[in-house]
């Protein structure tokens, strides 16, 4: 890693003392990126953009929010009505959470299709999963803060999951609550942790990028670059492409913020929390629905909780469950179909998660849960052995050059 020559004397003076500009140079204009990345590769930078929006809006919202059960709901309404641009900041934060998850879900499924989790990118994949887990915890605690009916009852149901733990379950739940029910101590600690975790996510994103810049970006062909002819510098080529993606993202995002700001929300959360009345139908936020469906598919309380957490934990073993040497789904004729089936299964679970647990919804949810685990634990290991992949191109440049000739 040789230091680039800087002409500007001030930059040179700083860089000799702390190599900020060298690091920047190495991770942008001299960072070799495969030249064949498609638009699905935009969603990593979009997720980072969403994280920045969340932290910025969150910091100013916290200046006007009061973390007390008797004042939290009203302080949020005050932000909506009286604080200058408070409505905008809150709607950006509310919808930003949904769009952060949309970007991350696309990013994850892109990785699943193109085999981005395979060697040498296993730790990169793990760090991504840790970011995802931290996001789920952050979003859950953030949803409790406005102290509406869904805030309160969502918090009650989710924290009660831990009571399924044998022997110490009730002690854990009391400890999480800081009392004998979800109450002011719970709200206070959730606010504290909701403020902390985004910075933990930021640190994990930094490690995710360090791992990325060590193993380098994957690409749609799933073969590693053979030399400089297969790569282009990240800056300016992908900075401008990512910036274009940000433009499209903002069009859609601001469309929701301005014209359908409550599209992703629950009307019940505009009713102040009442510990004495349970809403008839408790639904979590949309990004949890597939896991909520898995929780309810198992008729046993502890079993449901294990299946729900297992659904995420099993993804950590994915680099070894998928035994195929070929990374990209493009060259895996059978895997390709199973991938789309798996995606459809996740959508089905999401739909079931939003429905009451009754009638036909129960067997459909159980079948979809079965398929989720069957795909990851049985289909993927078998496919790697049975499937005959298509011939891989000689290099990233080869298919393009052949077409020209």
């Amino acid at each position, binding site marked *: 890693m040789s230091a680039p020559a800087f002409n500007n004397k001030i930059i040179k003076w700083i860089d000799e003392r702390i190599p900020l500009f060298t690091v920047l140079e190495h991770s942008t204009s001299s960072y070799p990126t495969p030249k064949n990345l498609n638009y699905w590769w935009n969603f990593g930078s979009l997720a980072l953009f969403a994280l920045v929006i969340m932290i910025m809006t969150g910091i100013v919202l916290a200046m006007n929010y009061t973390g007390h059960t008797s004042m939290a709901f009203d302080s949020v309404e005050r932000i909506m009505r009286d604080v200058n641009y408070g409505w905008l900041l809150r709607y950006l934060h509310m919808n930003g959470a949904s769009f952060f998850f949309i970007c991350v879900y696309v990013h994850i499924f892109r990785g699943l299709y193109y085999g981005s989790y395979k060697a040498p990118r296993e730790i990169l994949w793990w760090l991504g999963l840790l970011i995802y887990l931290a996001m789920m915890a952050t979003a859950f605690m953030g949803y409790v803060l406005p102290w509406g009916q869904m805030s309160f*009852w969502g918090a*009650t*149901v989710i*924290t*009660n*999951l831990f*009571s399924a733990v044998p022997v110490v379950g009730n002690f854990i739940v*009391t*400890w*999480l*609550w*800081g*009392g*004998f*029910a*979800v*109450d002011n*101590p719970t709200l206070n*600690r959730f606010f504290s942790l909701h403020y902390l975790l985004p910075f933990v996510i930021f640190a994990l994103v930094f490690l995710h990028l360090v791992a990325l810049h060590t193993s380098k970006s994957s690409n749609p062909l799933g073969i590693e670059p053979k030399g400089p002819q297969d790569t282009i510098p990240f800056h300016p080529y992908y900075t401008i492409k990512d910036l274009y993606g940000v433009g499209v993202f903002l069009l859609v995002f601001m469309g929701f913020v301005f014209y359908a700001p409550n599209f992703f929300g629950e009307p019940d959360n505009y009713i102040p929390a009442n*510990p*004495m*009345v*349970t809403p*008839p*139908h*408790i639904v979590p936020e949309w990004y949890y629905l597939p896991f909520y469906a898995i929780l*309810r598919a198992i*008729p046993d*309380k502890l079993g449901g909780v294990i299946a729900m957490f297992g659904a995420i934990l099993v993804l950590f073993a994915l680099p070894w469950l998928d035994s195929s040497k070929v990374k990209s789904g493009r060259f895996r004729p059978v895997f390709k179909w199973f991938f789309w089936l798996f995606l459809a299964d996740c959508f089905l679970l999401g739909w079931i998660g939003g429905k009451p*647990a*009754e009638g036909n919804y129960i067997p459909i949810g159980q079948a979809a849960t079965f398929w989720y685990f069957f795909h990851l634990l049985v289909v993927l290991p078998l496919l790697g052995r049975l499937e005959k992949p298509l011939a891989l191109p000689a290099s990233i440049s080869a298919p393009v050059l052949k077409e020209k000739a």
Partner: protein
Amino acid sequence: MAHSTTAAPSGSSQGESRRDFLLIATSAVGAVGTALAVWPFVHSMNPAADTLALSTTEVDLSKVAEGMAITVTWQGKPVFVRHRTADEIKMAEEAPLSDLREPTPDKDRVQKPEWLILVGICTHLGCIPMGQKASDPRGDFGGWFCPCHGSHYDTSGRIRKGPAPLNLVVPKYTFLTDSQIRIG
């Protein structure tokens, strides 16, 4: 040096084992110290003294007529106080124990048969079952029905149907007078 033929000079090997000892001892003390230091942080999240101080609630029963029920707050939780009718008591007492998921006879769940005192929290995932108001659905067994995931409780608050694993909890309470109880 003369008596050592196989290993490095004994002085040096002794020095290494002393260093190993120091390293292990330091690490052990450090680990125990850290574990002890973590406890105040963990325990600070447990219920505080003022939260614990709110641990009793007194209820005046004289205003609850037969067949009526009221909900009171105890430790931030709803507590159901139901003045059972003779029919309800009979149903609760005559339910065969073999039909119950958590078999407990009704007489072990009440101090006076007409007064049923329960923590009004579904043992599944913490929702509040319906059945306190006359207009509420009371489920298939005339007690309570939890709308969240469909658990049915009988007139003794015992789980009869649905995903909940346990009976509604009977809190500790004492009769101060014939018409007054203290919960907690």
